[in-house]
């Protein structure tokens, strides 16, 4: 970490020495001001002055600006991105061009921020499109999802042109975006291949569910029912009408849909809980990726992660990305899923889909994952999700 910091500082100073009318000290100070922006516009005034300082720089400022994106908050990264465009435009419009050699070297260092690397790639593409196309060929396994996407796109194009199952499989092995995975899967299935889609995505298929509890007038969302205090799979609870107890549920949907209606019938004004245990190979950062059109809350290892009380406005895979910390060994995941009382045709669904992935979207499979149910391996008519 210390070496990286020193290296970053050295790059900043080196760039600043060449920048027009901006001293290394000014650059460092300006970047610090931008990185200090906080919530609700905090630090905006200082960042605005700092931004003007940085944008005065010549194209040698580009590497320091890109490097500054490492570890920057999403807001700070956007401030820096704006400066990159401004500085780059000056170089291009003046006919001076861009320092593509230095940018490419920076791009090749995969320790740099993935999104900033995509930005660096775009700068190269702007002035040397053929070079950019050549570079992308080597990025099929890149940590930047955006760079990887373009590389996978090329493989998919080749696969189509050559009707190559092997290339479709290669695309599937490297794809992270849902649309590209679905394209590859469809072609592989056409060719008679079996594709384990739930495993590819890492959807959690095996759950214990309990309910229904009351959610009349949507009040159940805020109400703390017993499973939120402690999950005991052998306990029965007072439900909306009767005693309710945990039941095993295994999704047979290729996209891991946990359809609560199939357990309790088409109930309205209700809530349910779904619980699963996830054995992690190692302690690590991960993401829970959720899709649902019902109101929901999620806890991991008893810690509340996030909740949202929106009903029937739409659903898709990876609709919500929730950063979590997995502990080595057993982790518990509890989902609360609320159904409202609307009676319109599009308000019937009471379901969610959840997967565990890394930041690029690659599945992180649990050690205790069971084989995918046979029904989930068979393609079903596509539903709008």
């Amino acid at each position, binding site marked *: 970490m210390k070496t990286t910091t020193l290296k970053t500082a050295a790059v900043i100073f080196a760039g600043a020495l060449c920048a027009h009318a901006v001293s290394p000290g000014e650059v460092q100070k300006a970047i610090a001001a931008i990185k200090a922006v906080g919530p609700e516009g905090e630090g*905006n005034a200082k960042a*605005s002055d700092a931004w*003007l300082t940085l944008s005065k720089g010549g194209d040698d400022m580009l590497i320091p600006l890109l490097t500054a994106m490492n570890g920057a908050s999403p807001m700070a990264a*956007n401030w820096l991105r704006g400066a990159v465009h*401004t500085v780059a435009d000056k170089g291009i419009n003046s006919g001076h061009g861009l320092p593509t050699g230095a940018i490419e070297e920076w791009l090749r260092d995969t320790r740099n921020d993935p999104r900033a690397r995509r930005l660096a790639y775009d700068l190269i593409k702007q002035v040397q499109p053929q070079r950019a196309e050549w570079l992308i060929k080597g990025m099929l396994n890149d940590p930047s999802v955006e760079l990887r996407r373009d590389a996978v796109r090329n493989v998919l194009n080749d696969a189509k042109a050559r009707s190559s199952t092997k290339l479709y499989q290669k695309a599937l092995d490297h794809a992270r975006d849902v649309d590209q995975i679905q394209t590859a899967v469809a072609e592989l299935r056409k060719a008679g291949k079996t594709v384990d889609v739930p495993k590819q995505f890492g959807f959690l298929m095996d759950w214990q569910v309990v309910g229904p509890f009351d959610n009349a007038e949507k009040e159940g969302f805020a109400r703390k029912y017993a499973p939120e205090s402690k999950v005991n799979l052998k306990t029965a609870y007072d439900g909306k009408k009767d005693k309710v107890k945990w039941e095993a549920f295994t999704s047979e949907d290729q996209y891991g849909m946990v359809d609560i209606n199939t357990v309790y019938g088409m109930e309205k004004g209700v809530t349910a809980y779904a619980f699963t245990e996830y054995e992690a190979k190692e302690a690590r950062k991960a993401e829970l990726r959720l899709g649902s059109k019902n109101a929901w809350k999620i806890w991991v290892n008893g810690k509340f992660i996030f909740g949202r*009380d929106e009903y029937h406005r*739409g*659903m898709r895979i990876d609709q*919500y990305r929730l950063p979590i910390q997995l502990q080595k060994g057993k982790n518990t995941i509890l989902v609360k899923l609320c159904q409202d009382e609307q009676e319109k045709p599009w308000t019937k669904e009471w379901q969610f889909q959840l997967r565990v992935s890394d930041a690029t979207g690659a599945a992180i499979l649990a050690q205790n994952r069971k084989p995918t149910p046979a029904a989930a391996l068979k393609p079903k008519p596509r539903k709008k999700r």
Partner: protein
Amino acid sequence: MKTRSTLALSLALSLSIQADNWTQFRGLDGASVSGDKLPTKLDKKNISWSVDLPGRGLSSPIVYGNKVFLSAASGPDQRRLHVICLNADTGKQIWERQFWATGRTMTHPKTCVAAPTPVCDGERVYVLYSSNDLICLDHDGNVKWLRGLTLDYPNASNSLGMSSSPIVIGDTLVVQVENDSESFAAGINVQTGVNRWKLDRPKAANWTSPTVAKSDGKYVAILQSSKGIHALNPRSGEEVWYFGGGASTIPSSTFAGDGVLYVPANGITALKPGSKTKDVKELWVSGQLKPGTSSPVVMGQNIFTVNSIGVLTCGDINGGKRLWQIRMKGKKFSATPVAAGGFLYAVNEEGLVQVIDVKGEEGEVISTLDLGETVLGTPSVARNSLFIRSDGRVWKIGS
């Protein structure tokens, strides 16, 4: 703290400075009416220029002086946000800035992330996206400040997409971010991007845009929702008056030159604002004038509404009586028409621009121009020209 007189001056400046420009959704004070002279016989020759855009959008272009500002979003999840500045005479790009979306970008397929129309004053351009990213640039593309409203307020989003367009009143930017989960409105300092005020709003999806109106000689921000109309002091956020009974959550209210607020509620409800709630007068209600997605337009003594299947209805602003109806060409309409010189300019979802002469006893479509692309965004008018955008292109149509 500004004095009242200074505030009044800044309000007057910010509104008068817009006179020759089209600075926000529905243009001058959000009334959709222009004093420009537009062509009434449309032909391909009227297309001064058209320019490809780098991403999707249904926000309107806005025009200030010789610059056209647009928003767009690109990428598989529309996570790349674009602000584009074009030369109004030539269409040539002057600058483009890109940012990453920090909020959710999921929308219904029909709409998109670049749905809210930007707004500008004499110094800055303010661009809001469905992801609740709020970007402030000066007219040369320099970043003045940024906000990520979903980072600040994590449940402020709508999985169908957001579309409310912000407005500037004096030195305050008013944003309305309403949805089922975390609804609010805020008055934001245009210089720093920091909240002057923030109010909880009804927890319900709402796609309407705030409107500027005058109450008892003072400018107020009109916030419309399923609960009704709230008129706020734009600088403090304090309620000036409230009119209950509910209102539409898609078409927005129009404050016309006659000092009346035309609210899409029970068809159209005409309100005469007052200095307090008890002073607000309901002038009339007409269920015959119900709009679809587009907002009402007032020109002269007439009010015009368009329903979703292209029926144009003309009413009398003195009483709300329906005067005539015609069916325009095409079956789907989303955009609000604009009015200039006794003519309405409407564009249907298939991209057919229509000139409607509304000066006679009944409206008549007198000319059309097929742009050949889906158009959902409301046209803008400036420099005696229409500016219209699709998902992939913007056109300037002039004499």
